[in-house]
């Protein structure tokens, strides 16, 4: 793999950038792989990368029906934080956070992980109880977090309306300084490049249309382009399309696919230095390095696979943003789009074995899986490599919906993304 550096840029500028190598190959698929990953989003690519890097398993294919990283990975608002309430999720997301903190160097690809901090605002007494509870849990789990009062919030976000004159005045916030944002495309590309360098095959524009299952075990996948490709183990990492793959495998998942929308303003000069999220007025915003205000809120209520949402959701989101930042009223909204998120009843992912032997699922990240990308790939790779779920993945078994061991992040944390 060609190493990237400032010096390299200088060197290549002398040859007019004519000698950059491909970031990944365009391979002809083999007949058989040790592991096939369905879905070339961030999570699938990270899985492939860690399989190769940490477990030496390089006879791996990632099969992507569109272009790499073109699903939710390309559509999300890139908020990264690890201040989850329950131990199981806190450990998983903190595992990811630690990997984020060295990811650019590990991949030799700048994923622009920007730890500008994440504020979760509280607007009611119950919000504040929940914030206290979550921060208390975070601290005892070794995750950075503080409870701030409106004055302290104002110091961090001087342009937000922290006064008492709003419909739901800000009463306080949780603050995770290590949280922030990252450049979503770079994450997918960096993992893909890294995996390719170890010999992983990335098959783009190739859709898995069926699974080949014999005697209760998966032995391969059927694709629209290359027919059947055999595999020892298969990991499905297809986010909003997980229900479709599960159906091919003959089981149901407790997952609902919903549109989730996001939007950006025109680029403006830097005015907001952290990520601000409010569950109660229901919107969140950060400012990208390009200057766009990156905005989002909650899912559209109905189920669907069309990557579009409804206008009322957008209107409501904008109301929330202008309620928090009245000065943005004259700023203009440039673009809006949607993705399809795979939501679980307890707002936690599924990283699991399945009723089909050697078929593993990684899904259900819903509105908030981007932040987990390296961690998810890391523990999923370990599970695929050994055939046994990584200890951090174990609580996220799909069978928890049978036995009741849910990890309900709705109740107290409540905040999506």
């Amino acid at each position, binding site marked *: 793999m060609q190493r990237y550096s*400032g010096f*390299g*840029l200088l060197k290549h500028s002398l040859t007019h*950038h*004519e000698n*950059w*190598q*491909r*970031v990944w190959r365009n391979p002809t698929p083999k007949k058989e792989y040790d592991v096939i990953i369905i879905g070339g989003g961030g999570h699938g690519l990270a899985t492939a990368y860690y399989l190769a890097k940490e477990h030496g398993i390089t006879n791996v294919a990632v099969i992507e029906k569109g*272009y790499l990283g*073109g699903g939710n990975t*390309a559509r999300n608002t890139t908020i990264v934080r690890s201040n989850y309430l329950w131990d199981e999720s806190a450990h998983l997301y903190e595992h990811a956070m630690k990997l984020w903190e060295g990811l*650019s160097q590990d991949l030799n*690809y*700048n994923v*622009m992980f920007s730890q500008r901090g994440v504020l979760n605002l509280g607007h009611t007494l*119950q919000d504040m*109880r929940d*914030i*206290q*509870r979550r*921060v*208390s*849990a975070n*601290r*005892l*789990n*070794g995750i950075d977090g503080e409870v701030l009062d409106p004055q302290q919030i104002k110091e961090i976000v001087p342009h937000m309306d922290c006064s008492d004159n709003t*419909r*739901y005045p800000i009463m306080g916030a949780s603050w995770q300084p290590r949280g922030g944002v990252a*450049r979503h495309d770079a994450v997918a590309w960096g993992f893909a490049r890294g995996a390719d360098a170890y010999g992983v095959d990335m098959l*783009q*524009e190739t859709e898995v249309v069926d699974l080949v299952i014999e005697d209760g075990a998966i032995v391969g996948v059927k694709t629209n382009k290359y027919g059947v490709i055999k595999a020892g183990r298969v990991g499905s990492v297809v986010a909003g399309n997980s229900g479709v793959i599960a159906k091919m495998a003959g089981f149901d998942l407790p997952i609902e696919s919903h549109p989730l929308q996001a939007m950006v303003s025109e*680029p403006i*000069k830097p*005015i907001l230095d952290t990520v601000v999220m409010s569950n109660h007025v229901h919107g969140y915003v950060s400012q*990208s390095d390009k*200057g766009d205000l990156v905005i989002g809120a909650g899912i559209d209520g109905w189920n669907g696979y069309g990557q*579009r949402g*409804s206008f009322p959701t957008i*209107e409501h989101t*904008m*109301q929330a943003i*202008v*309620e928090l930042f*009245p*000065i943005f*009223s*004259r*700023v*203009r909204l*440039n*673009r809006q789009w949607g993705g399809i998120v795979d939501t679980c*009843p307890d707002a936690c992912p599924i990283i699991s074995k399945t009723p089909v032997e050697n078929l593993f699922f990684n899904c259900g990240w819903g509105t908030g899986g981007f932040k987990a990308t390296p961690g998810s790939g890391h523990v999923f790779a370990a599970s695929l490599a050994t055939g046994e779920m990584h200890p951090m993945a174990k609580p996220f078994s799909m069978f928890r919906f049978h036995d*009741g*061991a*849910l990890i*309900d992040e709705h*109740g*107290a944390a409540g905040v999506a993304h």
Partner: protein
Amino acid sequence: MSQKNRLGTGGRIDRTTPLKFQYNGKTYTGFQGDTLASAILANGIDVVGRSFKYSRPRGVVAAGAEEPNAVLQLGATEETQVPNVRATQQELFDGLTSQAVNGWPNVDNDMMSWVGKLGGKMMPPGFYYKTFMYPKSLWDTYESMIRKAAGLGRSPLENDPDTYDKVNQHCDVLVVGAGPAGLAAALTAARSGARVILADEQSEFGGSLLSSKELLDGKPATSWVKSAVDELAGCADVLLLPRATVNGYHDHNFLTIHERLTDHLADKAPVGMVRQRLHRVRAKWVVLATGAHERPLVFSNNDVPGCMIASAVSTYINRYGVVPGSELVLMTTNDYGYQAALDWHDAQRKVVAIVDTRQNPQGARVEQARKRGLNVITGSAVIEVQGSKRVSGVSVATIDAAGNKVTGAVNRLNADTVASSGGWSPVIHLSSHTGSRPVWDDKVVGFVPGPTVQKQLTAGGINGKYSINEALSEGVLAGLNALAKLDLPATEVVLPSAADMVEEASMTLFQIPHLLPTSKAPKQFVDYQTDVTAAGIEVACREGFESIEHVKRYTAMGFGTDQGKLGNINGMAVAAKALNKTIPETGTTIFRPNYTPVTFGAMVGRDCGELFDPKRYTAMHKWHVEHGAKFEDVGQWKRGWYYPKPGESMQECLDRECKATRDSVGILDASTLGKIDIQGADAREFLGRIYTNAWAKLAVGKCRYGLMCGEDGMVFDDGVTSCLGDNHFLMTTTTGGAPRVLEWLELWHQTEWPELDVYFNTVTDHWSTLTISGPNSRKLLSELTDFDLSNENFSFMDVHQCTVAGVPARVFRISFTGELSYEINVQANYGMHVWEKLFEHGKQFNLTPYGTETMHVLRAEKGFIIAGQDTDGSVHPHDLGMSWCVSDQKPFSYVGKRGMARQDCMRENRKQLVGLKTKEPKVVIPEGSQAVFDPNEPIPMTMVGHITSSYYSANLGHSIAMGVIKGGLSRMGETVYYPQADGRVIEAEICSLVFLDPKGERQNV
């Protein structure tokens, strides 16, 4: 120098109304009818911006929505600042204040351009992914430098003084675009009586005709426009919306229109006017007549100010009477492009040359040019432009027939303006918003709308039909089609016609070859605003970014505020060439809303500030305000939180309220509790299925507490439901949970048990609920009613109808404080009357108003839960020690039964709700504190629960808390620890939840 580029006559401007405006601190003059861009060009201003990455000087390129460069900051005052206004779309008004958004010390002399010049070579696409990684610790510094360069304009720092409205509209036909096609479609539909909305982003209807010199039936095209608009204006059911951009096309023919009502008048909306409106339109049929955007050609240094698209040159001359230069070189691949040179020549300025990339063009316009004696150079191209802040000359060379390479010597020509035309791209944006994939049309050399599931028709330029005659007839056809679908009769529409011109095929050419390969040639810009060059796209392709989506994301092509209206197709062409594919093979181009940016305020309308969410007040709200209450937001309600007396601290106030209630009598405004009236023969059965406990035997006139769970068996809401008649119940819910519970009941009834005869109706605000609580509450109530309140006649958990303070009332003897309590319900608007009567008679008992906080303390003394505070969706009734509230005897199941029976819900050692007493009696454990058994365990510590509720109890003289602890119900007397952020560790003993009156005698007296 005043308006040096303004023509003495012509154009649609009013030379008798001069307007003063400011640009970069200097005052200039333009005319009524100008756009900011035309006025800037009239005044000979070349540089309007600096490019994003290389800080190159940039000038006006286009005349409409596709303009990438002339993006300015507007606003004379702080509160009226608007960032990123496209000067080509901003009408000039007197006093307009504008500024370039980049450049230091100013846009003409920008220091950053040195960085661009020196470092530009080191900034290929995605360069930031390849560097700034080492040393790791410096990333924050690098990033803050990158961030400094971010953004175009700036946000205002003061609040918006203007208001915005929203309007819902319905129509038979929404016509988007009022050029010839749109006008014809609208006329056709309107004449048949259809309800029509015609919207156009420009100030005037007419579209391309406004800047055209063509004649319709021998008369100027604009006179037909006028008669068409007049006729439409006279139709009763036609709504004409100029200055209104249809910016989003959503499913089910729902479209949004962003109408700017005052942006052409002043900085701030004149008094009494709304600045902008958002129309939310449900159209039965939509006719897209959105026309086409001209494509510039891609050649070296094509971004030097003075390089424009050909049609924009014509528009400035014909519509605004402005010739944006003195010496023109036109480069074109098609006949239409010639018009710019013809117009330039007719405006008596010098046409240096027309450079046609075709080998042997002979079309009508070509011949016109030759007739005028213009220098037409064929089979050639402008391969490079000279100049930095303004074009000073061009290099022209012959090229091969395919347009792939330079074949001859290079000639230098002097010029200050280069117009280019590479053909036209249909404006398919709206059609692709709905998910319809555009399809490539080789004849059009562009994408046209693809198949759609929407009720959508298209006409004119959007279909690649560019002549006026075609546009008009396509418009009529679309109108007729819409009428047919709507089953409306059609009326004949006679169309004017324009002279047919012989037109030759255009050449399919996007990027002009240079002597040097693209990677070495001077920069050839594809997307001006994001500084994407042809060489950059080649690098992306070389690196393996082969899908057009990858190319766009890697290079940022199309991510500007113009969303790639000029550049995307050129970029695809460059990528296709690099990948040795056809354009459609590299993918298609997807546009997303908004067509052009929309003001946040317009999307918000009135729904912020006071109106962000309705405020709900009880009938006694005024009294609470007058008595100094502090309020708490619960759901949408404003609830009295506590009632401090002057000088009293919160804790002192709570102590007083709590004591007064337990010692004598207190009063709570409980009107906000959700109330759902449930009736029907199966109401009782329904309750049994929704609640965990039994309802079969509840007698008329009796109340019962119930718990409601989700399917997962976890507690979701609670409340008292009373039996008012055999088929009639009144359910109460938590204040915040009321809407959710009603939805829940409806959900189960409508989707699972539609056979049950039961009806739900919210009656929350039909009633005022006044809760009096305390040993003297009976005495107090007896002063206001003749009803026999004796324990025998009116016992605990009874409901009776009686008269209180002369008003019919439902009185419930239920208790959330553990005291003798009555909840008096009266018709809502009697609430204040009864409240005041109670105070009149309550003086003798020291009747004390208390709010939600005291309510919380009093119920905690009794160990009563608050759903949503002591529960969080992870505890079932048994965890709460409320197994008594779960009945397994019910013949039908109930919601949550199966969930509760799952293995994990039955296991030992679940977190269970218990009471907690601190070792230090005065210390109140902060709510939310996490519990550990071993305070010395290093981090990460094993957490075993947390505090859900915690207070100081004045009645007990010590603090009390509720919380969950692993296996807590079997750990009575054990010690747990609560480590705090400040280092303290609070020690507490696990105890019963019931701190006061464990036998429950006080409420039964």
